[in-house]
């Protein structure tokens, strides 16, 4: 198989894997939840922890990646860690906390609410994946943004589906869900990072297998994490 065909095949497989996430029992349970205010609050807080864990993961990936890829990740992290000040956009953690206001959450609520135990375990697993050889590691982080890309996911990305549920159940319009709205846009852009890297660094079968290995493992952790989230939300009134 030529390198170009190999890349296209790999990309198609990655996109399919992301789409299959939404047919998995944990995703179906999470997406079958009916949001109450308490559930929306818990979800919002846990998502802020998830976003923090992504920052850990991308940091480790930046550490092990080649110099040119480090630059791409550094730019990626500008949106997440710092925000686009020139465009008046804040960082994504601040955004998550600000979005919490529409669900009746204060900034303190984010500080005093613990991470889910199951979330903690998944976060450790993602960090461990981020410390693996760099092609596996970058795939492990990038696939979560592909899974959140409305261009790649049939029926809408995870952020857009959750946003629609919050609008349906609590009457909070998407434009007021500023964090979800931002990720619906940004993750479409960020989802392309992996292919840009693969075009230069995944010319061989071995490299492409490494990418698929990292992506599959991350999506497995993602399913476990979403299952824990679904359990937690179900337990709340």
């Amino acid at each position, binding site marked *: 198989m030529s390198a170009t065909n190999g890349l296209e095949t790999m990309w198609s497989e990655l996109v399919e894997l992301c789409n299959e996430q939404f047919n998995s029992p944990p995703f179906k349970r999470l997406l079958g939840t009916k949001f109450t205010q308490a559930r929306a609050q818990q979800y919002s807080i846990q998502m802020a922890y998830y976003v923090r864990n992504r*920052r850990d993961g991308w*940091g*480790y990936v930046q*550490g092990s990646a080649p110099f040119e890829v480090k*630059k791409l990740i*550094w730019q990626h*992290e500008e949106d997440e*860690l710092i925000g686009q000040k020139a465009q008046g956009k804040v960082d994504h953690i601040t955004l998550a906390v600000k979005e919490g206001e529409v669900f009746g959450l204060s900034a303190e609520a984010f500080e005093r609410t613990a991470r889910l135990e199951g979330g903690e375990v998944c976060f450790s697993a993602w*960090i461990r994946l981020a410390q693996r050889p760099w092609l596996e590691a970058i795939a492990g982080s990038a696939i979560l943004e592909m899974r959140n890309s409305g261009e790649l996911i049939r029926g809408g990305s995870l952020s857009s589906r959750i946003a629609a549920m919050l609008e349906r159940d609590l009457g909070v319009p998407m434009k007021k869900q500023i964090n979800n709205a931002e990720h619906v846009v940004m993750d479409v852009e960020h989802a392309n990072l992996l292919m840009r890297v693969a075009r230069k660094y995944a010319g061989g079968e071995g490299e492409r297998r490494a990418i698929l290995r990292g992506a599959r493992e991350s999506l497995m952790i993602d399913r476990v994490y979403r299952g824990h989230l679904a359990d937690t939300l179900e337990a709340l009134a």
Partner: protein
Amino acid sequence: MNLLEDLLETLDRMVNDQFESVEFRNFLAVPLTLERGRFYVVQNALYTSNRRDCWGYVQGGAPLEVKRVIWEHESDELINDPRAGMDHYALTVKQGEVIGLKPEDFERAEIPAMVQACFHAWHHIAMHNHWLSAYTASHMLERRNNGKIVKGGGMSYRVGKKFENELGINLKRMISLDVHVVADTDHSENISEMFKRYVKTEEDRDLVLKGAQESMATDRAYRGALGYYMAQIN
């Protein structure tokens, strides 16, 4: 004296002591020839790359506020240092032109065995320690380059002066060394600010000292290795 002041004084003493070590003395005593100078500049680019790896790992493990400080720090290094108008790797490659090096010389450079071992050691410290230890380990290499702290000048300054005195190349023409004389002073001061915020207990202090000691030991081994390899070049 309080915990923090005492700690910062200890870190200052440690970076000064580096220059009294047998490894640093041997390295700085090797007379420069053009070939040795070329070897050093190429190796320094590889060292800079290793720093980028480690700061990435440290960013991964650090609290959010510290991540932001490191991200800003890496702006100079990875993207563009306004003092130089380019990133620090490009700066090192550009500096090489002064002594007849081409970009290909950097691309095909091999990492000598003892240097490789030091790079692995720094990776290990950055990835597998508490973040305070990891953070300090990377910080100490900039503190050791801070002329406001190191009596007689930091490493970049001293090596720059060797190029000037032994090869007749003015420090200003050794643009990477020259930029680092200033950049690492700024960097080490910005990074050191975080100690004020996060070192509150003896346990915190001990984590900082652990990272400092391990990194300085690796740095001595690294400089010893460079001195050894340089001395093999006629």
